């Protein structure tokens, strides 16, 4: 039982990190008043770019450097998703296109580029098997494997739960803290929040609304893209496959933003909880020692979405001003409409 509970938590932390990156990026974006429904697409693009760079780099050099194996995929994932975010920002800020529609089109584009690009890179490189093995090793390096605790002991379980992850798991937590500090403690963070709440007032106060909207959306997209990077390089062991559930993960990230009531720090535990719910069907039977049939499994997989809806309803009934979405979320801002 301890064994399966530990596996559940370890699995949830890894899976949750994917959603956490996606949600953190989306929080930044939504704080600027942009509901970006393109998160699944951004994650696809980020994941694809990271994988392609990692794969091409390590299959192109005899002795890949560890530093570059970390730096290149991170830059590629962040950069590619940021460019896609720029496209979104241009459409909704400059062209004042509808945010929902643009976001959905971006999801479609991202899923297309990611799924198609993966196969294309494989074919062009003449390989049938696309695993970035060395990069995975670097990304999965952890402290836990350096200790030698006895199998099955409590210390071993705790060490696994806390230390058995690659650096990106901790990077996600650091990101959450940094974004929290940025939003709550700095002047630009305050300006950004004011843009999301009431752009007209922010504009009158001398805040460059368009600049904040662009920057928040582009950086947010990049952070979301890192979720894809982590998904492919760590969760999928560095291997590319077109048949993955990254799209559902992207929607989970959008859901997590609501669950976390737009607070970056809440995403830390929220994402792990979401991931535990997501994998409940696989681990829960083992933990409580029951055998569950497939149809019940299917129902268990609803849990994260049901919980999100419950949270959505609760936050809307409590009408607590601290737990609400940014007031101008989803609305385009046009100065002359005042």
């Amino acid at each position, binding site marked *: 039982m301890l064994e399966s509970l530990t596996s559940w938590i370890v699995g949830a932390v890894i899976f949750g990190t994917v959603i956490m990156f996606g949600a953190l990026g989306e929080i930044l974006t939504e704080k600027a008043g942009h509901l970006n429904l393109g998160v699944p697409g951004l994650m696809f693009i980020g994941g694809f770019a990271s994988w392609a760079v990692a794969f091409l780099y390590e299959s192109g050099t005899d002795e890949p450097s560890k530093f570059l194996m970390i730096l290149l995929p991170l830059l590629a994932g962040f950069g590619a998703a940021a460019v896609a975010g720029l496209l979104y920002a241009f459409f909704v800020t400059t062209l004042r296109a*509808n945010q929902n529609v643009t976001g959905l*089109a971006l999801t*479609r584009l991202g899923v297309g580029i990611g799924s198609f690009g993966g196969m294309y890179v494989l074919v062009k490189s003449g390989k049938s098997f696309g695993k970035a093995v060395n990069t995975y090793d670097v990304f999965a390096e952890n402290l836990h494997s350096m200790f030698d605790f006895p199998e099955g002991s409590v210390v071993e379980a705790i060490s696994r739960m806390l230390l058995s992850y690659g650096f990106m798991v901790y990077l996600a937590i650091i990101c959450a803290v940094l974004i929290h500090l940025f939003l709550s403690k700095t002047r630009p963070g305050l300006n950004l929040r004011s843009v999301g709440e009431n752009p007209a007032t922010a504009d009158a106060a001398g805040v460059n609304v368009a600049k904040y909207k662009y920057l928040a959306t582009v950086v947010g997209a990049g952070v979301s893209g890192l979720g894809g990077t982590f998904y492919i390089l760590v969760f999928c062991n560095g291997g590319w496959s077109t048949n993955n559930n990254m799209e559902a993960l992207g*929607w989970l990230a959008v859901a997590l933003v*609501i669950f976390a009531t737009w607070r970056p720090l809440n995403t830390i535990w929220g994402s792990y909880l979401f991931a535990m719910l997501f994998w409940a069907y696989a681990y829960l039977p083992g933990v409580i020692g029951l055998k569950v049939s*497939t*149809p019940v499994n299917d129902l268990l997989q609803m849990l994260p979405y049901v919980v999100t809806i419950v949270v*959505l309803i609760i936050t809307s009934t409590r009408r607590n001003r601290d737990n609400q979405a940014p007031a101008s979320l989803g609305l385009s801002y046009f100065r002359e409409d005042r």
Partner: protein
Amino acid sequence: MTKEKRQTEPFVHVTRRADMNKWVKLAIRLGAVLLSFLIILIVASAITGDGLGLTVKYIFDGNFATGFNTEEMFKNVMFLLGIAVALAPAFKLRFWNVGAQGQVLFGALCASILAFYIGDKIPNALLLIMMLIVAVVGGALWALIPAVFKVKTGANETLFTLMMNYIAIQLVACFIDLWKGKNSALPNFNIHGIDSIFGLKYGITYLIVPLIAVIVFVYLAKTKQGYEIAVVGESMNTAKYAGINTSKVILRTIAISGAVCGLIGFLYVGNLCRLSNTADGGYGFTAIIVTWASQFNPIAMAAIAFGIVFFEGGAGGIVDKHSNILNAYFSYIIVAIFLFLLIGCEFFINYRINFSEKVKEFFKKIFAKKKKTQAETEEETARPAEDITDDKLVEELPDDSPDEGVPPADPPQNGEANKEVE
């Protein structure tokens, strides 16, 4: 320093417009479609290495090469159009129903439950009618869940309906697993599906979807309830002052929206006699863009639905010829290009772009230089081009109407402009 900064004028100044001739609007939209076709051709040709002409041929082959392709295309247009029509009342209300996928699936599931359990016990015609009814009611109820919370607590409908999609997907998966037992896939239901008419497998669908489209648009445009929807959509407060029961209007409209989605779900199950997680054909999300881009014009809606399906089929045609390097997701990219141009062109319809004087001068300068190189006369080489623009600038100056926000003290700015020209 700060003084100088305040006087820089933005290069472009955008204003709202509402006076555009409808033919110009149409021309802009058609231009966007043509441009997207061109970009798609270039992208596809660059990836496959085919010539442009060959790519055009593949795109048409993908849609019309065989009777099967053509039928498949028209069926897809109908399903996409059907869902888009279903969303129209909700969007007119400014209720962002992104849960069409879930509503179609739940409607299909309700119909399937009937087909599975009592399919062989009652006459087929009666069964189909009952399936239709439960699918429509099911779709409406599924849509009503988020609508009720929207009305009661103000819960965000975009995210609510989005989540409802995944719950519906898992519900359908649950029933499929329950029914298929030891089989690897769910066998077809033991019923006689909707008959083909006019020799077309989806004959009934071709009749029902356009009929529903007409009914929905007459309802929206010509009835009192349709007018109420428009008022509530434009301004909740206006509607309240006018004595409209907004809650009732929202619930009624969303129920209609869900009911039409349920109908599409029934058409799927009724035609194919099976249930799958992709009963909405992946069009639940695409339809949102179709509805929005059509601006509630039924003909535009049909045209856009056709465009999307056409490009999808075309991408399929290209993939068929290059299955070694392309996969089915290629069509996502192609359709996304089309969608982005469709979304982007609305800007040029709703806004007027006014270039600042500086930019105009800049263009004039370039234009003048071009003229010069074209003419290439002795006289012109004797007289530098800068002089020409300078003269023009001086002529322009009296017309210079100072823009809002820029301090009226113009001289330094003009001086600066002159300096730049020199």
